């Protein structure tokens, strides 16, 4: 065997192992949903069942946590998208030298461990007598999710042609109209993508939420607590449903971005 062929074989083995590592846990978790066994596993296989979906459907605590997560995600979008957009606009308009410093400040929440974001928020609001709960979850999550919005909007702003604004002003549009009718439509794709990412980040967050949740239980906290209080394949059914939703959402997002890109190069 030549050296080139040997290295190709070695690389093939590595690549196979890599993708097995990537997918085996997810496949095992999904398959365990359909096993009759009370503990989620695939070995031994005790028979095919769909009853864990029924049990999940009847789990009131699960539905409550889904509602908490949806409410949180909704308000996180409402806070983080305007804040991030404003931040991107301010950042691109300040003087070159100030920009670096401001940028560092604005991305600092991304470089802060999630638990610290939660702790700092919890401590601040204790001063005014507000304890953990949905309100603090929204604030704490928004404080770093706004960074992602800011980055996405700023990236799009770089390609904005200012002469459009001048043309609108020249044609007699008010300054507010220029923002409303020229800049916002241009930013629309970035805003939609950012809102989507914000929902996903909010749903998936655990570290920050853990510290500010108070007595409220969003979905990720619910799942993690199930591991302690008694894990049954009903949790796998939930995982499978969430995986299906995220994969569909991700596909929709990628298709959306692809179309935007195609339109951008065409136009």
């Amino acid at each position, binding site marked *: 065997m030549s050296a080139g062929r040997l290295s190709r074989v070695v*690389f093939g083995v590595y690549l196979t192992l890599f993708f097995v590592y990537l997918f085996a846990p997810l496949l095992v978790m999904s398959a365990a949903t359909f096993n009759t066994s009370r503990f989620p596993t695939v070995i031994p296989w005790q028979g095919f069942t769909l009853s864990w979906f029924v049990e999940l459907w009847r789990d009131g605590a699960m539905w409550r946590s889904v509602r908490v997560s949806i409410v949180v995600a909704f308000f996180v979008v409402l806070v983080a998208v305007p804040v991030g957009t404003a931040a991107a606009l*301010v950042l691109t308009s300040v003087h070159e030298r100030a920009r670096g410093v401001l940028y560092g400040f604005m991305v600092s929440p991304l470089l802060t461990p999630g638990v*610290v974001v939660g702790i700092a928020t919890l*401590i*601040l609001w204790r001063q005014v007598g507000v304890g953990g709960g949905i309100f603090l979850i929204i604030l704490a999550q928004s404080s770093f999710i706004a960074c992602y919005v800011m980055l996405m909007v700023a990236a799009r702003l770089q390609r904005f042609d200012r002469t459009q604004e001048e043309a609108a002003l020249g044609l007699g549009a008010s300054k507010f109209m*220029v923002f409303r009718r020229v800049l916002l439509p241009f930013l629309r794709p970035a805003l939609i993508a950012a809102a989507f990412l914000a929902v996903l980040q909010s749903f998936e967050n655990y570290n920050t939420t853990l510290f500010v949740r108070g007595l409220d239980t969003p979905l990720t906290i619910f799942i*993690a607590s199930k591991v302690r209080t008694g894990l049954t394949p009903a949790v796998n059914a939930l995982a499978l449903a969430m995986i299906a939703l995220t994969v569909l959402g991700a596909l929709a997002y990628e298709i959306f971005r692809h179309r935007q890109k195609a339109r951008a190069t065409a136009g």
Partner: protein
Amino acid sequence: MRDLVQRFGGSLTTVFVALVLLWMVGMVLAPNLLMIDYALRPNLPPAQIGGPNDHYSLANFTYLAGEATHRAIFFKTIWASAIVTFVTLVVCYPLAFWLAQRATPAQAGLAILGLVIPFWINEVLRTLAWYILLAFRGPLNAVLLALGLISEPVRWAGDGGVLAAMTYAYILFMLFPIYNSMESLEAAQIEAARDLGAKSWRIHWRVVIPHAKAGIATGCVFTFMLAAGSYIAPSLLGSPGSRWFTEIIYNWFFEGGDWNRGAAYALVLLVLCLAVVLATLKLARVNLADVTK
């Protein structure tokens, strides 16, 4: 700023600036300053707050330095996060190189799709998947037993389980920065090195790695930071012997009832992460703006 007023008028500009101030001051700066304030004060019953005993000191930090278990867990968290970072780098490097330099566009597209799908799924679920896979009577032990590789089930919970799940969780944070930085490397440079007689490892060491330095530094920084600040993997897959620093912080808040000490510990974690991030970026001469791309 004058630019914004000119473009959108005074009232819209006021709204923008107010939103940014609310965020930067109200949601980032104030919480962190108060956390520092908390960390420097003793934990007192409500009646004594503001009284003669309520003065600044470093007592909460010296407590951490003096408490052997917590100190050990702190250093262990750093050390283990460094191992997670290194293992993730080793696992990702060959794939990143292949994607950037060897794969056909179709192969690369397919591989990236395969990589992105698990990444979209949330971290708690990915950790749960490892919990099920690594269970004592779980599938991995069953397969290894059937293959005759082990004679009795292995308890994976502990350092091994945490390492596997964390590496899994942070693969993309490592892979994509490296891939992006390798993509701009001209294939001709590699060929030139080969024609001049360089061996494969030497090409990587002298040509590919220096070129991809920024990407490697970025990937390592993110992986280390996420690993050191992780809570879910050690809490689901750990054992009493593999406790993580974040778990100690959590206990101060919700079991020990000493928020001041908890704030001090959180501050130590924050400073550690920022120091590692900034030092690595400085060493690799990478700009913060390149990292967050």
